[in-house]
Every structure is written in structure tokens, then in C-alpha cells.
């Protein structure tokens, strides 16, 4: 057990904070909101120069071979600054899937480009029909078919809530290629050129107010068979692992954002004067700040633990599920607490940075699986827990307890104690 960040991690954190404070002020976030790309390309390039895009890739693909825990620390800072970038889509969800399941050719072609900031990717997974059913992030949700035609496959259908679709050069599309006995069997991943004939994009206006999510319609889109990532029918396993990593990193991002909101609230409570005193003197105001603080600290430990286990290759489905489920709650809670403290200065969208956090927090909560989804995953893991050793025996069986105490009535017992002359 050791909760200390390593020297390199501390340096990474410090450097990231300084870089983002200088390069990614509020104005940059607002500007990105209106752009089709959803992020400033020059900032993306700078992030590539800093090595952020290849951080977890092996050195032979131009990366620096660092751990998921290191990346989680970076994500906290990115959440704090609301860094607008397709990092999660490109580097983690698509990039990690390719790194795990792709052919050597795909890897050496795509990963160095990602690392250099020349390639943006988006994951097309969720679909219109099943999503309302809460199955958006389960293999059951994948129904769009890819049918073989000669040396190619034809994809036909609609993918919804595709993050960073307008920015992407390539889409990683999850398709149904056969109906297996289990839903996870029969899913195939395709690398699809985003400009392929037959693909059309419609921006979905969401709570966040940006243009980062799209409806993507595949109208008989032809993809060569060599563009399959991983095994035919066997795409779910590597994708699920990438989603797990993504969920932990997204949680780290939410912790960073929640912490920023908490700090804003505390700062406001100290400086805002009403009735001739700082409002933070009131216990009610303090309560909001404390609850936000506990949300941040409690969830951060979960994030670090899950990220560490992922880095070490220890099975951690339970920890991942716990992390995203709690981060979902904690992040929106902390934003809410901050709104209570900041009140008027918190909801004016032009002057305050808090609405930017709150709105993104909500989107992140629903991204990669809402709370219900991850709670159910937690339940699936804990229902396998064994019964404890040596459970409770017959009530008070082995001990010779007076008759009238067999069913302890605490009041009877109280009187007994009182009536006893000697207490021991």
C-alpha cells in the first residue's frame, strides 16, 4: 500500500497543470464549443509534442510506454481545465483496441500517426434503438449489420452518440456479423474511412452545447475485409477492455472537474461578503463545500486503485465498475454543491466557468455507461462473492446466557443493570 505519486507522476501533473492553465483558458473551451472539430488543432498538436498522445503506447509506435495510472493523472488535469480534445476517442477507445487486437500493419500504420497528432479517430458503437433501453454500452446494443460482399463488407445502419465524429479521419465501427449464442459473440470491428461514400453525419445538440456528438448514418458503406480490427466475430473482447480503461480515465477527468468546482465554491465562500461577513462562515455553506470535498477525495482513491490495477494487469472488473458508478454520482454532486454556493455567479453562462463544468459533467456521466449500467456491473461481480467463513451460529448457542436475555430486549437489560447492586 502506497498512495504517493512517483516523482515522474508529480512532474507530469505539475507540467500538465501549467501547460493547460496557459494554453487552455476558459476562452479556448468556449471557442471549441462552436467549432465543428470540437477542439483547437494547434492545441492538439502541442499535446502531441508533449507526448500526451502516445503516453501509453510502446516505444516502437512512437509512444513513451507509460502506464494507465500515469495517464489517469493527466486526465485529472485535463478535466480540471476542460481540455477540449478527442483524446479519449482517439488514443484510448480506438487506439487501445487497435493496439490490442489490430494487425502489425494496422498498428504500425495508425498508432504512430495518432502519437504525432495526425490522426483522429472516433468509436461508433451505440445505436438508436437499444440505447433508450439502457443497453447502449452492452454487446446486446450492437445490431448494425456488416454483410460480406466479395472481398468487402457492407455496413448499413445508424450509430448514435458518436463522440468526435466530425473531427475523425477514421471511425472504428462495431457491427453485427452473426447472431451468436451470446450477444458478445458475433461483433466485428471495422476501420472505416470517415469520408467513405455513404456516410453522413448530423450533429446532435446536447446538454454540453458543443458539436462533439453525432448521429452517423451508414448507407451501404463498403469496407475492405482487411480493415477488420481483431478477429471476425470477436471484436467485443478487446473493445470492452478499451471501454474499461476509458471509463476509468473518464472518471479521472470527472474527478478533476469536480475538484475544480469544489475549489471555486470554497474560494467563493471565503471571499463573498453578505451581512458583513464571508458566507463561508455559515455551517450550511460549509456543508456544501465539505460534501464536494469528500466526493472528490473518495472517488479519486477509487480512480487511482482501478488505474493501478489496469496498469499492473490485475483483473479489476469490479473496481472499474465501482469507479465509474461512483464518479458519475460524485462529479454531478460536486457540481451541484458548487452551484449552491456560487448561486447567481454560478449559472450565468457568459461569466462563469462553472456551467461549462456542470454541462460536461452531465455528458460524461452518460458517456461510456450511465450509473445504472455500472451499478449492475458491480452487482454482477459482488453476487459471486463467497459467503463469509464461519457464519453466525444458532442465536447465542454456545454461550450460557440467562433465559430472559435469549431474545434481548434492551429495556429489560437496562433495568437489570440498574437494579443490580454491584455493577461488575
Amino acid at each position: 500500500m502506497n498512495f504517493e505519486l512517483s516523482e515522474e507522476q508529480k512532474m507530469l501533473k505539475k507540467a500538465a497543470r501549467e501547460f493547460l492553465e496557459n494554453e487552455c483558458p476558459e476562452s479556448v473551451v468556449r471557442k471549441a464549443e462552436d467549432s465543428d472539430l470540437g477542439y483547437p488543432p494547434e492545441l492538439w498538436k502541442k499535446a502531441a509534442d508533449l507526448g500526451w498522445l502516445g503516453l501509453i503506447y510502446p516505444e516502437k509506435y512512437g509512444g513513451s510506454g507509460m502506464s494507465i495510472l500515469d495517464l489517469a493523472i493527466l486526465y485529472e488535469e485535463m478535466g480540471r481545465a476542460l481540455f477540449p480534445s478527442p483524446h479519449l476517442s482517439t488514443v484510448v477507445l480506438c487506439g487501445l483496441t487497435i493496439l490490442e487486437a489490430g494487425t502489425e500493419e494496422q498498428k504500425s500504420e495508425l498508432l504512430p500517426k495518432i502519437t504525432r497528432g495526425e490522426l483522429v479517430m472516433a468509436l461508433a458503437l451505440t445505436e438508436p434503438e437499444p440505447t433508450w433501453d439502457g443497453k447502449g454500452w452492452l454487446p446486446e446494443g450492437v445490431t448494425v449489420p456488416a454483410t460480406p460482399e466479395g472481398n468487402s463488407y457492407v455496413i448499413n445502419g445508424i450509430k448514435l452518440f458518436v463522440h468526435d465524429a466530425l473531427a475523425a479521419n477514421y471511425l472504428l465501427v462495431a457491427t453485427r456479423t452473426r447472431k451468436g449464442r451470446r450477444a458478445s459473440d458475433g461483433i466485428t470491428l471495422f476501420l472505416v474511412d470517415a469520408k467513405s461514400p455513404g456516410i453522413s453525419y448530423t450533429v446532435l445538440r446536447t446538454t454540453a452545447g458543443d458539436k462533439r456528438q453525432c448521429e452517423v448514418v451508414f448507407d451501404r458503406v463498403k469496407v475492405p475485409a482487411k480493415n477488420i480490427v481483431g478477429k471476425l466475430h470477436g471484436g467485443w473482447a478487446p473493445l470492452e477492455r478499451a471501454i474499461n480503461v476509458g471509463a476509468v480515465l473518464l472518471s479521472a477527468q470527472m474527478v478533476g472537474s469536480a475538484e475544480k468546482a469544489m475549489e471555486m465554491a470554497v474560494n467563493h465562500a471565503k471571499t463573498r461578503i453578505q451581512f458583513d461577513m464571508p458566507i463561508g462562515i455559515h455551517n450550511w455553506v460549509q456543508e456544501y463545500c465539505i460534501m464536494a470535498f469528500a466526493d472528490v477525495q473518495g472517488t479519486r482513491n477509487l480512480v487511482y486503485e482501478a488505474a493501478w490495477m489496469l496498469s499492473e494487469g490485475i483483473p479489476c472488473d469490479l473496481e472499474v465498475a465501482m469507479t465509474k458508478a461512483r464518479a458519475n454520482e460524485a462529479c454531478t454532486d460536486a457540481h451541484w454543491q458548487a452551484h449552491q454556493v456560487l448561486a447567481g455567479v454560478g449559472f450565468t453562462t457568459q461569466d462563469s466557468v462553472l456551467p461549462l463544468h456542470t454541462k460536461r459533467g452531465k455528458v460524461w456521466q452518460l458517456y461510456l455507461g450511465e450509473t445504472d449500467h455500472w451499478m449492475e456491473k458491480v452487482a454482477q461481480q459482488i453476487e459471486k462473492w463467497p459467503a463469509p467463513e464461519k457464519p453466525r451460529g444458532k442465536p447465542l448457542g454456545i454461550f450460557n446466557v440467562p433465559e430472559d436475555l435469549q431474545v434481548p430486549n434492551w429495556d429489560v437489560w437496562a433495568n437489570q443493570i440498574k437494579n443490580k447492586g454491584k455493577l461488575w
Partner: protein
Amino acid sequence: MEFGFTEEQEKLRKELHDFYATELPEDVSGVPALSRELQDFWMDLQRKAGKKGYLAPGWPKEWGGLGLGHIEVGIANEVEGYWGIAWPDGIGLHIVGPGLHLFGTEEQKKRFLPEISSGEKIWYECFTEPEAGTDEANQQTRAVKKGDKWVINGQKIYITGGYKPDWLYVEARTADTIPKHRGLTLFCVKADTPGVTVTALPCMGGYRANIFYFDNVEVGDDAIVGQINQGFYHVMATFEFERSNTGIAARAKRELQELIDFCRNTKRNGKPLIKDPMVRRALAKMAIDIEVLRLAAWRTAWRFGERKRLGPLDFDLTGFFSRLNAYTHPNLKMDILGAYGQLPMGSKYAKLDGAIERGWQVTRSYHYAGTMEAIKIVLAGRVLGLPRIPAKLHTTIMQALQEKEKQA
């Protein structure tokens, strides 16, 4: 960063686990130590564990410990938590012992520490008073020097414990200072010293607390722990040991395991409870809460091991989270049992031996080492740096209230 344990540490965990697995007949943690038989059983176990050094694994070997580090102590705590062990002499082991280590004289250490680590004696801490709860420094109990003796007079309340104590760890006022906390001193008082009397206070869930009265109780200079008038600081320093309790989460996890097993094997409307979405959600929520608590406790334990003072980041979040859970978890569990949730242990229809009912009752009394409000005051002031109402203003408010009463 590292969330695992070394092989050595896992070996220790297994050794401790197997020891208690052999010694304990079944999970008896829900059974309050009401009867002489049960008290004898726990005392015997305490002595057996003491002989092996398991009671105080973190203490040096010369004082009867195993000389292990803080992570190892955390592991021992977890194992004890799993088996539901609450040592009769918890106070001696976790409050008095560390206090003596830090502030006691060589003589006191030689005299008291081996007794505590071998599990022979029972200590109670006599800090809380009717007028000194959260406001710990407001002690009214007085110790006055007369000749070569100190004479203690006063009353201590909510002193938890059902066993007969051998020693009392008393905080008393030795000087009328401003601020109040600069005039307190710690004393070791033998429980059968003439002038010490006691009244029992039965508590929810079958616990017993006590009121101790001190009527011209005489002790010598050798009873003083640490420096005269520095008692408050000594207490605050030793309280920190109580805050790294990894056992709470281990205990909570075991109880959750028990409930999950119950839900697997119990059907409602022909369907196992565990398949009910609402039950699943409640179980998942509790599992997450417990993990958050576990990590908070380990973080505190680790900071301790690194010989760092508990810093702003994790000041008593263990206590904070465990108190949050203390309210929500018993309610969720009782909901799962439905009407059976209200049946106490021993009742013919009680589920899980009534443990959940008792847990619900016991958590109402969960205020030791400071109430939730006390924790929040510290978090707000010391950690987040929020302003405090100045003492002067308190006086003004009190005066204004009195004025109003007069007018009425």
C-alpha cells in the same frame, strides 16, 4: 502508487486469519458481551492473542509487540474486523498505549505497556464530560496538588464498556487558563482507588456506557502522563491513532458478504432476492461505499507509516465516510429484509440472527472520537480553510439571546 500487498504481508494476513479461524467458534460479533461467560471468552481470547503479540503488532518487541510497520498493523486491523473482534481493552491498545509510547516515562512504559500488550488489563478513557463533549477542552473535572498527592474531583460520562476496568485514563483540569485547552493533564488512575464510583448507562443495541464519579481521588506524581497542562495536545496526538482504522471496512465487507449470501439463498415471490434489480442496486451501492471507506482508511494508515502528520487531504475521511454509511447502510439492509428487519437476535423469525437490527441500533451511538459535526468543523476550518465564527461573536450572540429572554 501501489494498492497491493507484499508476499510477507499476505503471509502475515494468513497467519492472523488462521489463528482467529481456529479460536473463534463462529461469528459472535453481533452478540453483546452481556454474560459472564461471554466476557470470559473474549478475555481468554485477548490473552491468547496477547501471548502471540497479535494485540499490538506495531509495538516494539520489548513491550510485547511484533515490531511491525503501519501497513502490517492495518492488515491486523482488517483481519480483526473480518472476525468481528472488538478487544475488551481496545482503549488500552489504541489510545493509552500509543499515548504512553509518545509521552510516558520509562517507568510508566515498563509498568503499563507489557500489561496492555499481553491483554491482561482493561483500560477506559475518561475524557468526555457532561459539559465537555465535542468541546473537549471544556473539562470541569479538577486535579489539585495537595502535598505530594493530586486530588481529583469530577464526573465523566459516556465511557463505553461492559467489562470491569483495571485502569482509567483520566483527563482533568490542572490550571484555569485561557484558552481552556492549555490547562489539562492526563492521569492514570487505578479503577479501584477509593473515591471512584460508577453508574451504568445502557445504550441502544446492547452496549453499555458508564458514568464515573471521582470524589477526592488521590494519585501521585507518577500517575501523570506527559507534561502537566499539555494533556489536550497529548490526547489530540493519540486520537490520530484511532483514525486509521482499516478494520471498519473489513467488518462492513464481511457483513455485506453475509447479506449477499442471504439474498442468494432467499426467495421472494419465487425469485431469489439477488435477482431483484432494487436489491442489486442497494447491494452495489453498499459495496462501493465500503470500498471508498476502505481506501480512505488505508490512505490514513499509509500516511501514518510514512511518518507524516495527517495532512489536509485525508484528515479523518475514514470517520466521515463511516458515519455516512452508518446511516444509509442499515436502512438499506433493513429494507431488503422487509418487516423481518425489525426482529432482534434470538427471535424465532429473525433473519441473519438479528444482526441487522442490532447494527441499526448500534449505529445510532456511533459518535466516538468526535461527532460528524466535529469532523465537519475540522474539515471546513483546517482542511478547506473556511472562516470560523470568532469567539467574540459567540459572546455577543449569547448576550443578545439573554437580552431577548429578559425582555420576554
